[in-house]
């Protein structure tokens, strides 16, 4: 997205080709990856407790 610049901002219209439009949708989709199946924060909790053995909070 960053490399594509303004071409990475397309939603629809002739100004953008299929690839440009796909970027935008994939970028939006990727936000869900850090939430679904246990959020990133939950994964960090699991690493901290199960792998590193850090103690439970109060």
């Amino acid at each position, binding site marked *: 997205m960053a490399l594509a610049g303004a071409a990475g901002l397309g939603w629809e219209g002739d100004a953008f080709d299929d690839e440009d439009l796909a970027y935008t949708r994939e970028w939006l989709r990727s936000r869900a990856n850090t939430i679904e199946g246990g959020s990133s924060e939950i994964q960090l909790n699991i690493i*901290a407790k199960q792998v590193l*053995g*850090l103690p439970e909070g109060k």
Partner: protein
Amino acid sequence: MSVVVSNGQETLRLVLDEEQLMLRSTARQFVDQHAPVGRLRTLRDTRDERGFSDDLWREMAGLGWLGLQLPEAHDGLGLGFFDLAVVLEQCGRRLMPEPLVSTLLLGAQALLLGGSEAQQAAWLPGIAGGEKLVTLAFDELGARGNAHAGLATAKRTGDTFVLSGTKVGVLDAHVADLILVSAKVNGRVAIFLVDPTRKGVTVTRHVALDLRNAGTVMLDSVQLGADDVLGGLDGLAFGAAVLEQVLDRARIGLAAEMLGAMEQAFEDTIAYLKERVQFDRPLGSFQALQHRAARLYTSIALARSAVLAAARTVDTSRDPREVAKFAALAKVRASEAFYDVAREAIQMHGGIGMTDEHDIGFYLKRAQTTLVSFGTNDALRARWAELNGY
């Protein structure tokens, strides 16, 4: 468990075999027992003339580490670069100042890749036995680790050369029995074997931030012959290529050391988080710190994969460009992860982390140094991009 990574052509095995696991555990035990980080403080404060332990070096030779990757014909064990990386990782855990990078990564690799049979026979057995230290002088002021930007020249007349120039940051130059020097002959890089006691050679030692030993090498019209060119006169044609390959191996070996260093700094920090009590609870029970620790853990895991893949590639690929890609990847990944780990390690130790009495500060000093060693990370990213056709 089988962990593999794809480099596009083949899969690289990243797991250690039985013998490598044994080598790792022996190395770890030896380093833990004989090389506590605290001795860096003693070596510094006593202004030790050598800056490392000769006794330890001899013991490492006795364990076979110094000849691990050298051919059996030259008194080595004939193992791979991957095996050497296994040992370097353990040495890195305790930031060992012994001349591993200079002699095993720079000197030995240059002799292996570019040396004539006579040159290999003259130096490799001495390296394996721990009697000879060899380094490589390639960097110059302003060259920023770029092996081709140097101004040192060797003027050729027939089969004789007159070498002049100044090389900086030459690891272990003050103790080296042989200094390999890169210099341009008619505009092309060649590597010369220079005896530091030769007329016209001046070595000045300096102390670096991370307490690794290095010096400046001044060369004032040093007279050399055809036998002093790495690879003989044929070497004039491949000096530049050898230098690149040597530096790539050095980047990978240094990354293996960094991997051990970041793992140790991280382990020490986790132990401290469990033990140190503030506000009636262990520091490690605070979620703010738990998440930061977990992020470091993941970046160490990524660095580990990059380093192991790079070390493996030295043994499995005949294409220097393939090794160069992995060298750039491993060095950038490892040094940036190491720097993050070392900074966070100090932060999580709090005030005590800022004191010279505590060992953790040594890791940050080494991490800062690795960021700019053997080429800046910006230059290596550019190289990665170029090699991948971006």
